Each structure stands twice: as C-alpha cells, then as structure tokens.
C-alpha cells in the first residue's frame, strides 16, 4: 500500500496523475461485459446496446418494473372505444439535449424513420404485421400525436415500450447525418452521450435540464433524476476480471455477478447483492419433425425423466423458481396453474420411451459454452435422462453456429434461452408458429396458433388469461419444449453506492443512484 501511495505521489508530482480525484468522485463506473453495437435505438443492437440507449433516449411510453406500460413522454394514453385510435398528449416540459422543446413533429419524424424499410428497425414487422399495423401517425397540434391501427391490438403499447425496440425512442432530427444515417442520439433522457471509446468505455454525462417525473423510479418509467455527474460503462469481458475489478474498487456496480460468486461476495463487508427475477426463459427445445422425437410419447418420456426442481435448484443455487410455463414467474399473467411442475417419474418415462420404439440410440442435444447456463442444462439433463435409459449426447457448438442451427431448426434437442419477453402472448409466440415458413419455431400446432392470435387481439385481461391457461395445458400435452425457469439478475454494489436497484432486465439503470464516498 505504501508503495502504491509513493507511486501515486510520484505520478502526481510529475503531473501524470491517473485521473483527477474530483472527477473520479462523481463518476459512477459500471461493468459492461461487451461493447455496445451502436447508439441507434433498436436497429444495430443487443442487450448491452438497449441498456445504454435507455439512459439517453425515451419513448412515448415506458416499461414499469412489473412489465406493464406507463406513459413517459406522453402525459397519458387515450385509447378509443373501438381500440383503433391511440392519442398521446405530450408533456410540455420536456427538452432535448440540444435545448429544443419536444413537439409532435419530432415524434412523427422519429416514427417515420422507424417505419421505413431501409432503417432495418427490429420492430418494424411488429407494427406493420398481421397482428398490429399502424395505418397513420398524425399530429393535430404541436403537443398531440395520434396513431391509428388497422385492428385492435393488445400488444401495441408493449411493442412501443420494448427495450429491444429501443423503446421506440424519440430523437431530435440532429441525431441524423445529412444523408439520413444515424450519427449520435440527441434525446430527452436523464443522461447525454459523452465519449465512446470503442472496446474500452462509454461515458454518459448528466443532462442538467432533465424534466423528471414525480415519484419513485419504476422500471424504465417514473422518476429518473440523475444524481451523478458522469456514468462510465467500463467494458470488461472476463467475469473473473470483473469481479476482481469490483473488489479492487475499479468499478462501482457489477450488474451481472455469476451465481457461483454470490456466496463469497455476500460475505464481504459492505457488498450488497441485489437480486431480481428476470423475464427471460431457459428452455430445452425438441425438434418435432425429427423421426424419433416426432412421437409425442418420446418427448413426454424425456420431460418425465427430468427432475426439473432439482435441476433448477442446482443451476441457480435456489435463486430461481422452477416453472414449466413460458410466462415468467414475475409476470402478472403467471397463474397458480402455471406454477405446477409435474413430478419426475422414471418408470413412466421408461415405459413411454419403450412404446415410442426407443432402443437406446443417442439423441444429440446442442449447447454452447458462451452461456454457462445452457451448457449446465445440457450436462445435467444428460445425467438425469441416463437414469431413465435415455442416451443424450452433447454437441457443444460455438454460439453463432448454434444460433444458425436454431434459426434453421436443425437440431434434435437444444439447450436454449429466450431473452426477456414482456407480453405473455410473446412468451408463447417466441417458439410457436408454422415451421414451413419459420423453421426456428419449435411448436407447430394450428389450433394453438389460432389461440395465440386471439390472445394478441384480445384486450380483456380475464379472457387473455383463459387463453394462456389453455395454451399452457396444450403445451404440457404436446411437449415440444421443456420450459425450466427464468434466471435471476444479481447485481453487486459496494457500500458507497446508494439507491441502486436491479430489475427484470439485466442491464442496470444509473438514474436514482448516488455516490457517497467517505
């Protein structure tokens, strides 16, 4: 320690200080496991990109912590009785980072870019498809935006708020270059984009004129007042190095600690672990067109041979609840019926496999080491199925290769994970659909397809729940997939970080956080 101090003294005396202490005092440093792809909302993106962009841009509506939708830039949302017209009166106190006030023309401008094919916005198909189709975006006055739909849709507002759609963030036209390409976000969020040094860090600066909503922070909605001058997302790809960086005081928030490190981190003085159930889904997919697995008895045998609660307990060290339903446990649409996990039954599994003509031939399960959970699921499933005489063979692929196999449906079984789906219809839609046109879909059942489309149009909550329960029952009959659990986000902070909370999406939120160093 003394040596280090003399190093620093030497450095300071030579005018080569590592960082000016005053600036470091007010910089919140957060680990990011990989660089962001761009700052273009919902276009060239991944989860890290979404998590950065939501500090800078805001949409008309935003997600609450429980995945319901709240108004953000809109004062409120008025829906016509026929469900076809959505009116968004805009808040009048909102300014962009360049000082310009927010007007309906800005919203129309942003929406036009999102809806253009050339933009390649991830969610263009979701707002211009069979379920939801925007027919017009109108601006009757500078403070009102009206959107018209072709048919009523239960998904419209959720889609606008989805993080992978970049929250359909409203940006000032200065965000674009003269040729219409994306330059850098000029938004209305609590932080503005500072320096982005690729492969190293991205810095955000506090937006002093941010117009915060009253109340408490809630998901991406509510009060998002920034309390720190600067946020630095430090890119640290290696998990072990990230943990060391937290302990050495080089970062202030480790948003994604590994399950296996939690016990040790909890035991350290001053460290707080923040756990929240996520809306993702860890799952085993089965290819129903495979000669062997096309027999529903074989798929049922595999499901019965798995001890799901034991598997989930081992994988998450008790952090997540096992659930065979695709709707996350944390969702308001997860009903008691969906919490039922059938008991393991090795005898029945053997019998069913026998009836399906299974004679011990190897079944290949595709997995990867990119996401440790996928790999561990495959290893544990292999072990459990062996006890029922079912011979699983691991095929460990590199991630991009596995993704291609997934997209093309080229697998027998696959350990996989779906990113967070915030609407229960989407939780089923992600693996349900016609294989002929969408080979990645695991469940091809026309009757279920019809129920799914009903659930997307139905706006009555009780009737939607009835549809979801019906689909869940059918899922347990057909067993095209074995849903296991939704993972748990574990963020860790040292004592001087106050006001931080983890939430359903694993990327952190820097607003509402204060630094209280000595």
């Amino acid at each position, binding site marked *: 320690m003394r040596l280090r101090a003399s190093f620093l003294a030497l450095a300071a005396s030579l005018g080569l200080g590592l960082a000016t202490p005053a600036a470091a005092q007010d910089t919140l440093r957060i680990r990011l496991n990989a660089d962001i792809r761009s700052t273009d909302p919902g276009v060239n993106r991944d989860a890290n990109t979404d998590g950065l962009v939501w500090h800078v841009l805001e949409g008309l509506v935003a997600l609450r912590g429980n995945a319901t939708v709240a108004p953000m830039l809109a004062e409120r949302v008025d829906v016509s009785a026929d469900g076809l017209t959505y009116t968004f009166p805009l808040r009048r106190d909102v300014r962009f980072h360049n000082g310009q006030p927010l007007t309906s023309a800005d919203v129309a401008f942003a929406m036009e870019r999102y809806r253009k094919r050339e933009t390649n916005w991830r969610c263009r198909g979701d707002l211009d498809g069979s379920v939801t189709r925007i027919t017009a975006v109108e601006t009757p006055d500078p403070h009102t935006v009206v959107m018209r739909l072709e048919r009523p849709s239960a998904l419209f507002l959720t889609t606008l708020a989805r993080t992978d759609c970049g929250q359909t963030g409203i940006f000032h036209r200065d965000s674009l270059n003269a040729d219409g390409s994306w330059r850098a976000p000029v938004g209305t969020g609590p932080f503005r984009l500072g320096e982005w040094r690729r*492969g190293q860090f991205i810095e955000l600066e506090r937006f002093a004129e941010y117009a915060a909503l009253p109340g408490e922070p809630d998901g991406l909605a509510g009060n998002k007042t920034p309390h720190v001058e600067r946020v630095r997302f430090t890119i640290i790809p290696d998990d072990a190095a990230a943990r060391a960086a937290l302990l050495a005081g080089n970062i202030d928030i480790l948003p994604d600690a590994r399950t296996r490190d939690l016990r040790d981190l909890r035991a350290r003085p001053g460290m707080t672990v923040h756990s929240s159930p996520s809306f993702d889904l860890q799952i085993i997919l089965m290819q129903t067109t495979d000669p062997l697995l096309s027999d529903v008895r074989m798929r049922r045998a595999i499901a019965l041979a798995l001890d799901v609660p034991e598997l989930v307990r081992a994988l998450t060290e008790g952090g997540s609840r096992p659930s065979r339903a695709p709707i996350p446990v944390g969702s308001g649409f997860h009903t008691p019926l969906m919490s039922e996990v059938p008991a393991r039954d090795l005898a029945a599994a053997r019998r069913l496999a026998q009836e399906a003509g299974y004679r011990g031939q190897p079944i290949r399960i595709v997995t990867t080491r990119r996401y440790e959970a996928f790999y561990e699921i495959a290893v544990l499933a292999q072990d459990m199925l062996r006890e029922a005489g079912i011979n699983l063979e691991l095929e460990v692929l590199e991630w991009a290769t596995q993704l291609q196999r997934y997209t093309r449906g080229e697998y027998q079984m696959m350990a996989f994970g779906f990113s967070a789906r915030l609407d229960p219809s989407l939780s089923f839609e992600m693996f349900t659909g016609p294989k002929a046109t969408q080979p990645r879909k695991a469940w091809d059942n026309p009757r279920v397809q019809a129920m799914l489309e009903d659930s997307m149009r139905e706006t009555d909550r009780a009737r939607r729940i009835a549809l979801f329960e019906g689909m869940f029952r059918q899922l347990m009959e057909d067993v095209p997939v074995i849903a296991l659990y939704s993972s748990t986000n574990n963020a860790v902070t040292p004592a001087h970080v106050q006001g931080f909370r983890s939430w359903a999406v694993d990327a952190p939120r820097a607003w509402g956080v204060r630094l209280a160093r000595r």
Partner: protein
Amino acid sequence: MRRAPGVSGWRGADVLAYVLKRLLVALPTLVLVAASVFFLMRLIPGDPATVILGDAATPEAVADLRVAYGLDRPVLVQFALWVERALAGDLGRSITSGEAVGPLILARFQVTAAIVFASVGIAVLLAVPLGMLAAWKQNSWGDVAAVAAATFLLSIPSFWLGLIFLLVFGLWLGWVPVVGYVTFAEDVWGALHYIALPVVTLALIETGVLIRMARASTVEVLRLDYIAHARAKGVPEWRVLARHAFPNAFAPTLTLIGLIMGSLLGGIAVIETVFTLPGLGRLLVEAIFARDYPVIQGVMLFIAVIYVVVNLIVDLLYPVFDPRVTAG
C-alpha cells in the same frame, strides 16, 4: 529458412534488391491469405444477420439485413468487390460497430504492439544470458535446474498466470488497476500501470521458450572447432562466450524471436481478454464470434503483412549475427 545474401554484413544495393525481391515473393502469400479467409468465413455456419437478430430472427428480418450488408450477392461478386476496395486502401466498415476497419486495426494494433515489444524485449534480456550460462555448464545440475525452470514457465497457461497476477498485484496489493487502458500518448505513467501485468505475464512465458533455444544453440556452437581454438590460445572464458560464442548462438534464437513476435502480434487474444486490453487479438476473436466479415478479413490481411515484415527484418538481421550465412 530463407537466408539473406552477404558474407559479413550488407551492401546497400544488395539490401534494396533483396527487400524488393522478398516483398514480391510475399505477394502470393497475401493473396492466398485474403482468399482463404474470405471463403473459409463463408463456409463457417452462422452469419452476421443471425447473430444480430438472435432468438428473434424472422426470415424476413434476416433477408433484409443480408441485403443491407451486401451478403445477398454471390460470394464471388462479394470477393471481387472487397478486393477492389482493399486495393484502393478501403477495408470496409465493421458490421458490428460501423467503424472503418483500417483505422480500427491500427488503433488496436498499438495496444498489442506495445505489449509484445516490451515483453519480448524483457524476455530476450533475461533468457539469452541465462540460456548461454546453462549451455556453458551443460549437464550440470545447474543446467538441469535452468531447463526445468524454463520448462515450468512454458507449462503455465498464460490466462492462468495472468489471473494470478491480477489477483495478487491488482487485488491484494493494489499496485495496479485491475481493468482499463490509456494510451501512451495520453498518459505515459498511466499506460505503464496498465500494461505492466500483461507484459510481465507474457515476458515470463516467452522467457521459458527462449532460454531453451538459447541454450540449445549455444551448446551447438561451443562444440565447434573455432571455440576450441580460442580456448587453446588462452582466450579468457568470458571472452570466448561473449565474443566468439554469442554472435553465432544468437542467430537461431533470432529466428525464434521472429516467429514469436509474428504470432504474438497477430493475436494475444487470451491475455487481452484477461487484462481487458483493447488489442488486435481480442478484436479478431470477437469479430470471429460475431461473424463480422470485414473486420476478420482486414485483421487477417494485416496479420499476414506483419508476418512478412517481421520475417524480412529477421532475415535482414541474420547476417549481422551469423557470418557463416552465405547468399542463398
């Protein structure tokens, strides 16, 4: 091994002609690297569109993205376009981040080069004297100990040693920051802090390789007649080693240093990952995982050029150390 002309040192005109000839000979290699990387990447399953879209890859969205990146065209057309632009000095833009590939490579290479040059330098200064001493005392227990130590260093995986250092010096002693990087241009002292651990890690491992090489070639040289002559004439032993044995023994070591530099400059992905340095190796590995074709192609071409240049420099230095080398 290609050897440079000249009997003892170089004449200016020779050098120029030799360098030009070598560069000309290297051209097919560069073309081969470029072509094989291009087609190999397209044989490997997975493409940038599926990686970007992940679990929500609808066929329409994949098709749209492929059009946006020009991947819908026939592969040969794509290759011709890439070659045409590369010849004009434009390596394209990264699919992942939209950055221009050329400047991206140069920025990342600075980091890698700083670490590689520093660590190889340290390793040479440590390993060559040690290796020569071991050879001088060949088959003694001291020699065996030196070989054992060198082999031990060789047997440690770099990511393992790197993490140990990170824990000891970064976490327990707190001497250096665990993560981050600043360039020398910004802050010399800070940059030294950040590259200290990776440099020491690599230097130790390279020392292992070089000690063995230096020892082996010194053993060879010490058997030669002229050494015996020198000894017989009563030349002091230290002088035999320094003036007579060293120049000849160093030549093969130089070749190895060239090979090591070449392979390190092209990718110390593992070290860069452990120490979170934005270097060339990490860039390549991440690009491979993301199927970022323009970056992979650009980096591979760059690495091939580095190989050619490093080998050329080594061969140019060769006659300086090994007077036996004749025109080849």
